[in-house]
């Protein structure tokens, strides 16, 4: 009886008696949800355009943030460093295309997936070799990002909204909008969708596969850089971020591997449910259930919709 009470009644009583806490938890969930969505977006971009499940997205986030901090510490002004970082992401995209993707064209998906894990290992080693393994502080103020917080008194309590979180949410929204326009309205975007649909058909109408791949990896790199800045500003820049990036995987399967709106909705569902379950139901199980709860939420959704919420329905034929 007591267990049932703890599961079904106690948390809701807590929610109603302390609405300020509830709102704070929901806000936390919303913010981490947008950040998961950003990482998931990077995955989706590459998966859509090349069918590659890019495991290296997480390390690209770390790599982008680290090169930004590293360049700044060398005395490069913040905005110049940002521009240089974008250039680095482009070089990374071109290198990956030339040395990993191009030789592996037409291989099975699992081989390409493994290649990106190999790439992850390479980038971990390379990043630690160049920048060192210790955590670094993100140059938040130098980039002109707000650092304060709004304290709102409401519902008999204090709700703290970090300004960096608000800007993270705004930037995520802007990025999604920009990508949506890019995919739907531009010439390159249309070519990307064509490649996503069918490689060979796209090539036969004169779309250069190599170019398209560089563009998607570059776009994913920029998304990674933005994620790295935002996430770095919330904690600090370290290789641990790469593990956090794994949290984007349940977001992906929840939203569907090929859907940009799916990444956003999935991110929000995972972020909110994760924080709610952790805060209200976590103590009962001994805490830190954040590490696996998102996967179970995603699994429950998948049980009913095996291609995710927005994934393309796969028609299988023998």
């Amino acid at each position, binding site marked *: 009886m007591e267990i049932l009470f703890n599961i079904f009644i106690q948390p809701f009583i807590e929610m109603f008696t302390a609405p300020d806490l509830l709102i704070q938890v929901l806000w936390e969930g919303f913010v981490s949800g947008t950040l998961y969505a950003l990482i998931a977006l990077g995955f989706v971009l590459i998966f859509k355009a090349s069918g590659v499940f890019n495991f290296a997205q997480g390390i690209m986030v770390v790599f982008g943030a680290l090169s930004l901090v590293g360049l700044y510490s060398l005395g490069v002004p913040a905005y110049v460093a940002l521009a240089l970082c974008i250039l680095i992401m482009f070089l990374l995209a071109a290198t990956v295309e030339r040395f990993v993707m191009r030789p592996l064209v037409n291989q099975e998906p699992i081989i390409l997936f493994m290649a990106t894990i190999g790439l992850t290992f390479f980038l971990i080693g390379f990043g630690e070799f160049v920048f060192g393994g210790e955590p670094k502080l993100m140059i938040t103020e130098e980039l002109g990002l707000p650092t304060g917080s709004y304290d709102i008194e409401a519902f008999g309590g204090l709700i703290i909204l970090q300004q960096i979180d608000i800007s993270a949410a705004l930037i995520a929204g802007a990025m999604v909008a920009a990508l949506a326009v890019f995919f739907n309205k531009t010439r390159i975007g249309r070519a990307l969708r064509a490649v996503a649909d069918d490689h060979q058909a796209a090539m036969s109408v004169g779309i250069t596969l190599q170019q398209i791949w560089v563009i998607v990896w570059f776009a994913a790199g920029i998304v990674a850089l933005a994620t790295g800045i935002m996430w770095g500003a919330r904690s600090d820049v370290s290789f641990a971020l790469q593990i956090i990036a794994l949290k984007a995987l349940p977001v992906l399967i929840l939203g569907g591997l090929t859907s940009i709106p799916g990444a956003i909705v999935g991110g929000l569902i995972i972020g909110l449910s994760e924080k709610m379950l952790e805060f209200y139901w976590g103590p009962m199980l001994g805490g830190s259930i954040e590490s*696996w709860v998102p996967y179970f939420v995603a699994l429950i959704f998948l049980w009913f919709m095996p291609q995710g919420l927005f994934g393309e329905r796969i028609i*299988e034929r023998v």
Partner: protein
Amino acid sequence: MFYRENGQFKTSYAADQAVFPILQDRIALAALLFVLFVVVPFTFSDFWLNSVLTPTLIFALAAIGLNLLTGYAGQLSLGTGGFMGCGAYACYKLTTIFPDVNIIILIFLSGIFAAAIGFIFGLPSLRIKGFYLAIATLASQFFLEWAFGRVAWLYNYNASGAIEVPTRTLFELPITGPTATSATRYLVVLAIVLVLTFVASNLVHGRIGRAWMAVRDMDIAAELIGIRLLRTKLLAFTISSYFCGVAGAMMVFLWLGAAEVESFDINHSFLILFMVIIGGLGSIIGCFMGAIFIWNLPILLRSTFGGLIDAATVEHISFMIVGALIIFFLIVEPHGLARLWQIAKEKLRLWPFPY
């Protein structure tokens, strides 16, 4: 020149179906086993036995487990580390509950617990396919990692949260715990790995293995020819987890001597996956090759460059080299070392003639 099958006639169905049809292969295998069982334990140093041979064999067994699932049944799994942990913690609990039962029996039994967990986490595979399933297996990995750290009953409520291996004997000879010599532990590992490899080899060459391969190649077609997907996929998950569980139990009891949550983390799963891919999907001998390659490459790098530059840099460089080599191997031979081995044997049969 010596590797010829001239004059070796197959006069029975059994000979035709043999796993090693060529006499020279059988001789080479017997010689290898003789060296591994008799020569190696008496001549190799503790470093070789402890840091090279024993872990390689254990990881090879885990790789066989994963290969049964991924290479033969076609279900990509990223939860190997968790299943190995299940075996290890189950074995630890069994040794505390039944202190008098022989440790070898307990190691074999502990795999059953891992198999049960694998069965449960294999259930989503009926609805979910491909990368969706791979991510779903991550659920098991993270859930199990959390459970190993949080459920105090699993590590007998001790303060450190780690599991320590007690001393257990076989024929009065200590084989686990701090007093066991590396040679005895190596021999026990070798024996268990060989027995299970034999089982795995028979599985994949028999009806079950053929059903798995049919599911891997096209599950709808497999269903149409009368293979029950539910049973086949769950059997693959269960047996694969059993192998991984035994490997995990051996890893803690016969190699590390103590373990905590970090011993079974996600990187571990990737390590095993690398071994399977580099060795060759759908090949038993490939698992051994992959394990030898992936496990010993960093050791080789460390011992080569160890004196020249500081340890941290060596670590970073070995990460880079492993990553680059994985990509290189995938580009050059996506079917792994096992395929290279096969090609080499084909060439050897004709050598020195071109055809």
